[in-house]
């Protein structure tokens, strides 16, 4: 039973607000990780790593996907369902592409730079931090997949924009987080 009361709603939908608090929580986790990186990088035995170029490809994919999901949201609000479905599908493909690029980046690091899990330098942090971020993107990809299935095969028409707004906000968040992490590894690392 869904008990969100329309009468009680104030300025922001409770689910949207919940997402914002969850985002704050996720930020704290990555802040914890990058703080650990900073503390660790000032200690003896620290080993640097060259960030593989393929991660630029990831960056392009996720920034582009942020644009497409924003356009998808706009289409949904205009009740233009065909462009909505198309843009959502493109976002999904770009999301999957991002994860594939991440995987290739890890592979390059492992094979070419011979960065294994032995030690505790920038490389090991990179695997864990980028890996955790990729898991968050994967969560978004699954949500997108569900929404796409609903958009194509759903039997009831969906009028409320809230679910689309939620996934859009989340997707922008993982995009912004990626840009932060990329800049962090390029500058601090």
């Amino acid at each position: 039973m869904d008990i969100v009361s329309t009468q009680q709603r104030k300025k922001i939908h409770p689910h949207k607000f919940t997402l914002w608090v969850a985002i704050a929580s996720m930020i704290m986790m990555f802040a914890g990780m990058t703080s650990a990186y900073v503390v660790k990088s000032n200690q003896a035995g620290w080993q640097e790593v060259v960030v593989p170029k393929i991660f630029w490809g990831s960056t392009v994919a996720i920034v582009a996907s942020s644009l497409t999901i924003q356009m998808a949201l706009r289409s949904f609000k205009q009740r233009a369902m065909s462009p909505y479905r198309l843009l959502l599908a493109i976002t999904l493909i770009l999301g999957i592409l991002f994860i594939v690029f991440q995987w290739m980046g890890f592979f390059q690091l492992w094979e070419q730079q011979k960065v294994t899990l032995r030690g505790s330098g920038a490389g090991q942090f990179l695997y864990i931090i980028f890996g955790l971020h990729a898991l968050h993107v994967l969560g978004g990809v699954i949500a997108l997949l569900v929404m796409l299935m609903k958009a194509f095969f759903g039997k009831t028409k969906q009028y409320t924009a809230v679910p689309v707004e939620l996934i859009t906000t989340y997707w922008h968040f993982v995009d912004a987080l990626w840009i932060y992490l990329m800049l962090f590894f390029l500058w601090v690392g």
Partner: protein
Amino acid sequence: MHANPEAIMAHEVQHDGHHVHHQSFITKYIFSQDHKTIGKQFLITGMIWAIIGGLFSVLFRLQLGFPGESFPILETVFGKTWAPGGTIKPEFYYALITMHGTILVFFVLTAGLSGTFANLLIPLQIGARDMASPFLNMLSYWFFFLASVVMMSSLFIQTGPAAGGWTVYPPLSALHDASIGSELGMDLWIVSIALFVVSTLMGGLNYISTVLNMRTKGMSMTRLPLTVWAVFFTAMIGVLSFPVLLSGLILLFFDRNLGTSFYLSDIVVNGQIMPNEGGSAILFQHLFWFLGHPEVYIVILPTMGIVSEVISVNSRKPIFGYMAMIGSLFAITTLSFLVWAHHMFVTGMNPLLGSFFVLLTLLIAVPSAIKTFNWLTTLWRGNIRFTPAMLFAIGFVSLFISGGLTGIYVGNSTLDIQLHDTMFVIAHFHLVMGVAAFFGMFSGIYHWFPKMFGRYLNPTLGYIHFWVTLVGAYLIFWPMHYEGLAGMPRRYLDKSPWVSFNQFGELDRMISIVAIIVFAMQLMFVFNFIYSIFKGRKVTTQNPWKANTLEWTTPIRPGHGNWPGEIPEVHRWAYDYSKDGRDFIPQTEPVGANEKIEH
């Protein structure tokens, strides 16, 4: 989402407050999305954990009070592996203290406390049908349940549970071969706490969104009861600090199982040099205590809210300094993130950095003192009703003062050199956040039991429970200050080889005996709890404590949705007691033409 949930509610709930739609046993009691049922699930699971965690303390107190003596029953129950000849093996002892801390801090005083009262009280006291997301709320409990299953299973494996202390410091926690308690039990500990963090986050997100977005008409933030403010701030601390612990545990998991060295360097185990290098064990301590210290406020803040409410209701007086109470909760919340390194004064920290942490730590005394002062002034010249709930609330204030004052000692980096890792610290934190939090929790259970189950707890058993527990708690923990000042270390299996500690032998024996009595008294409370659910005196009036808050405007046994008709509107704050010649004025009563209102 349904198009019009209000209409659905009106359809589903009859005017007598009961549901007309059919719920199976499973959807009503097991996979329930009703915040009240979820609150009870948290409470009962927490109580089961409290019995286990308390029993563990009795077992290790047997060792501390009677070192080396044989208790044949121990061998019968735990077998030759863990208690050969009826004495507790060192590995068993360390497992007991580790699991006691883990269980009590996380499973009882975090999930059992916040899970119970945030769930029960937030929708009822702010005037909402349920949480912002009842489904997420249900998931929160079931993740807690999963975490419980994993942790519980670690008690039954061959190598036993984690045994490196509840703080799971590396290298003990990071190397499988470091000790028997570093093996599979430690992996299960990490998995369980990771699940626990997910549960806490789901709960916390819901509590925050519900308080901010789902309040009924007229319920401005400055009209909220202090219980709601307290669990709200608790949730804020949780969602911002638990993720950092998760970060630390992920790195720990990699160190343990995948060969990284974030926390490990230059280690020799059983004469064998380990390959790990470049790691820092101190790094883990930073990540751990960034949660670990806020965690003590996660434990104490909800009880501060409960105590404020119970003291005001049973003094028949408005809470003294309502805004100062909120301000001090906010100050404690903020400061809780800035003091973590006071647990690490003796790790070789730069003394200048240490002095900043001393200053910030001692600053917490200010909001804590404000709260204490306000509780005392609320009691002052009140028309006090000494219900069991009220006694436990007053006991809370006493314990909070006794334990809080020694915080000024251990929060000082120079004194801490002497006091660190001694029994003094055990005395300090057990009084201020362990027993005090339990007293707050008991106060809440006695007070809101009628709302939870439609019956009263037996007050006579309640009075006995209170007095024995209060006197017992002081008898157990007060003498530990003296032991600690004399330098007696905590965590040690047997202190009898040190001549200087022999003077405390009798004292330790007394502490252990009292601990057994106090534990037995908690079993009596559990009996009272279970008995009263089925056979307790029935509640016959909607508002048995004559309180102002909204939960007492619901039917005696409210259905899912809480209010059978419209949600009541709020016209005043929650603390109009003994006002204008009236004993109490509920929040739902409109303001009179010439009446002055506080908020």
